[in-house]
């Protein structure tokens, strides 16, 4: 059933010679089902359907007007409807902006990875270091997760595999101090980028959310990326908004897209925060990070 909504809508319109509001409404119900099954935020789904309906009705009037005047109709109403949906969805996810904001002067550029527990921050930190190294940068990793058992070791193993330096302090219980020390270490080693791997946390944990704000105040990273699991459901907007309000996100990385989660969170998060989706995690390997492109994700979400 996951894949039926959009193609069902297409089918419904295909046989029609005369498209009117009732046919469009039925198709919109199919699309609604598809979007909710894809975990798109409920409120966003509603406003999306309103926008699509408005455009579709406008389009249909144009098409029937064309055919009345005896001119050849170049595009069927079904195709017009499909195109409207895809265009609208793609527009909501763009524009494409996968660049890092670099710090000016001789200061290392900070990239802070934040997000809920288990979404893929540590893995993505490694992948991003890999990508940046290939582009000619000198990244340094900072093990700022002082809570999770063997979190520091995990980052150290990845750093070793990628042959990038990692700053860690097994004796410190002060994440802010660790991040500051990493910046110093980067200057000493002539690294131009510092990637801060922070601990997973829940947005309701005020102490941990405040820790992130303290890290930001201390090292002023030019980039703060929310790492989100593509399987996330209706909680996407709530979570993204809280991280955004506290930190002002520069971008989003959506992980585990090599699975079959539809990834509706992509639009929900973008719409709720305005933060561009920068990268997509497509597997566990260090080379499995792609720069975001909206069209592939749009058809995946529509189903």
């Amino acid at each position, binding site marked *: 059933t996951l894949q039926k909504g959009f193609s069902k809508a297409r089918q419904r319109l295909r046989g029609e010679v005369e498209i009117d509001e009732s046919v469009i409404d039925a198709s919109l119900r199919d699309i609604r089902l598809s979007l909710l099954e894809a975990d798109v935020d409920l409120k966003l789904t509603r406003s999306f359907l309103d926008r699509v309906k408005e455009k579709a009705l406008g389009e249909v009037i144009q098409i029937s007007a064309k055919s009345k005047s005896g001119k050849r109709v170049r595009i069927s109403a079904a195709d017009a409807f499909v195109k409207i949906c895809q265009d609208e969805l793609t527009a909501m996810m763009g524009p494409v902006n996968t660049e890092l904001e670099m710090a000016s002067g001789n200061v290392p550029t900070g990239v802070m990875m934040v997000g809920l527990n288990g979404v893929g921050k540590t893995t993505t930190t490694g992948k991003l270091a890999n990508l940046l190294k290939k582009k000619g940068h000198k990244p340094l990793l900072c093990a700022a997760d002082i809570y999770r*058992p063997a979190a520091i070791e995990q980052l150290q193993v990845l750093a070793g595999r990628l042959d990038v330096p990692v700053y860690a302090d097994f004796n410190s219980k002060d994440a802010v101090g660790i991040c500051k020390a990493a910046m110093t270490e980067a200057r000493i080693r002539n690294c131009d980028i510092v990637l801060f791997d922070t601990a997973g946390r829940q947005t309701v944990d005020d102490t941990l959310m405040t820790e992130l704000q303290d890290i930001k105040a201390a090292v002023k990273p030019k980039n703060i990326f929310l790492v989100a699991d593509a399987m996330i459901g209706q909680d996407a907007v709530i979570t993204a908004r809280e991280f955004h309000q506290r930190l002002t996100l520069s971008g989003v990385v959506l992980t585990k897209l090599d699975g079959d989660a539809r990834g509706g969170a992509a639009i929900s998060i973008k719409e709720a925060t305005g933060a561009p989706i920068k990268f997509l995690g497509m597997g566990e390997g260090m080379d499995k990070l792609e720069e975001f492109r909206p069209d592939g994700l749009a058809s995946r979400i529509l189903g």
Partner: protein
Amino acid sequence: FKGTKEIDADLLDKLEEALITSDVGAGTTEWLLNLVREALDKEELKDPKAVWGLLKDEIRHALSIKASPYDFSSDKPFVIMVVGVNGAGKTTTIGKLASQFSQDGYKIVLAAADTFRAAAVNQLEIWGRRTNSEVVKPAKEGADPSSVVFDAVKTAKETGADIVIADTAGRLHTQAPLMEELKKINRVLGKAHDTAPHEILLVLDATNGQNALQQVKEFGDALDISGIALTKLDGTAKGGVIIGICHEYKIPVRYIGIGEAKDSLRQFDVEDFVDALFV
């Protein structure tokens, strides 16, 4: 009250919104709302309070699946195999279970059978130390996870341990070779101890949306999933997708995770869950 058609429609909209935003999903929501609509048509419901009451009753019913408690006394060691997608909370849940069981006086062996992910074995070793559990590790890096679980059961038999909990690597259900690996681990557990595993526990992240249904389906096709642990319910996500899962697959939710600490595991309580759903 049959109220007016308008009141009913408005109320149903509110119900639908509450359900969808809790990740109950469109399909399960429609099933629940149809039950409500039937009752409304038969004029069985007196007021909106009764409508909400019926909804909660139906949800409670779907979630209340009979499950016999673990029997650690006979046929030792009792073997629990823990599976699930990447990052769901398997290793942490195993640590919590070990903490709980060791407090109850049981001797535990943990099998560090995630031989793939960076520092996975270190992570479980730390949980072993925290909970006084022996940890059986891979003989070398990249070892076959099946050999680790075999060694763990063997160790448990030799030391008279009561419980073996096997940690496996996270995997997406779309990766067929990895699902085959799980089947092999399952078979090898049976070779090590003919009634093992006694529980195959699927760990689900409460933050997941509708993909959780796919996870249950695919892991269920590969293995006899006998229990579910629903983690991260200490966050803002409601975990409503579990309603459709229980309704369709009839797998009992054994535990919920409400934090990262070793004591943040609770037995699943249907009442508590339904109350929290509509807060």
